[in-house]
């Protein structure tokens, strides 16, 4: 089955990203296709490579990056939500005149249309939030 996932909260503060991750792993294990993971609202904060959690804690961002690499996941960060919250890739940073960018490996920035498209294309769209 083709499944889309929407993550609406950032890492650590709410459990949403953890649950989404565990759900996606289980879905892949069962042979489902993860069409896209879309990060909206504070969910865009899952896509910064600048986090450095305590050593005895999970690294939520790296976990997503690694899962994306392993399974060729499409991790999409909403551009409008990202701009509000300070998530930038190199292109966006240049375009906005910012002197730094912070996006983590495996994430790409795109428009909200990617979420609606996931709703259209997928058999199911599952939201994880606050």
């Amino acid at each position, binding site marked *: 089955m083709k499944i889309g996932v929407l993550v609406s909260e950032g890492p650590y503060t709410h459990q949403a990203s953890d649950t989404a991750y565990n759900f996606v792993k289980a879905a892949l294990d069962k042979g489902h296709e993860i069409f896209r993971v879309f990060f909206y609202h504070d969910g865009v904060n899952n896509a910064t490579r600048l986090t450095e959690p305590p050593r005895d804690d999970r690294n939520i961002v790296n976990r997503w990056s690694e899962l994306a690499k392993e399974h060729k996941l499409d991790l999409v960060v909403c551009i409008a939500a990202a701009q509000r919250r300070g998530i930038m890739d190199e292109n966006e940073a240049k375009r906005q005149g910012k002197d730094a960018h912070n996006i983590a490996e495996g994430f790409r920035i795109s428009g909200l*249309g990617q*979420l609606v*498209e996931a*709703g*259209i*294309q997928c058999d199911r769209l599952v939201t994880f939030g606050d």
Partner: protein
Amino acid sequence: MSDEMMEEDGVIKKFMFVNRKAPYGTIYALEGLEVVLISAAFEQDVSLAFVDDGVFELKKGQDTKALGQKNFSPTYRALEGYDIEKLYVERESMEARGLSEEDLLVDVQVVSAAEMADLMAEQDVVISF
């Protein structure tokens, strides 16, 4: 986006955006509305449900000057221009909050909890804010 893909597929799904949060206290109502506006471009069968504190999004007379945030409530009135015309308000939620239809800034269909339950159950995609 993928207009070609849509044309190829010709899929029209029933999308419902469920609004359960008050405006301004959190951003969910505003960013939810942004999804609704984008969805219009995809020519799907879109409806909006206002349940619980989501009803407050439609309260007349919002004035955000002293707050310093943007008043986005006029956008609900603009939805018609995007061919988004199915706005449902759950009567039980509205009445529990001391509101009546005259308090709302846009024409909506006020439905009972049972009717709202039916509407939700017949959707293909439900996104909640």
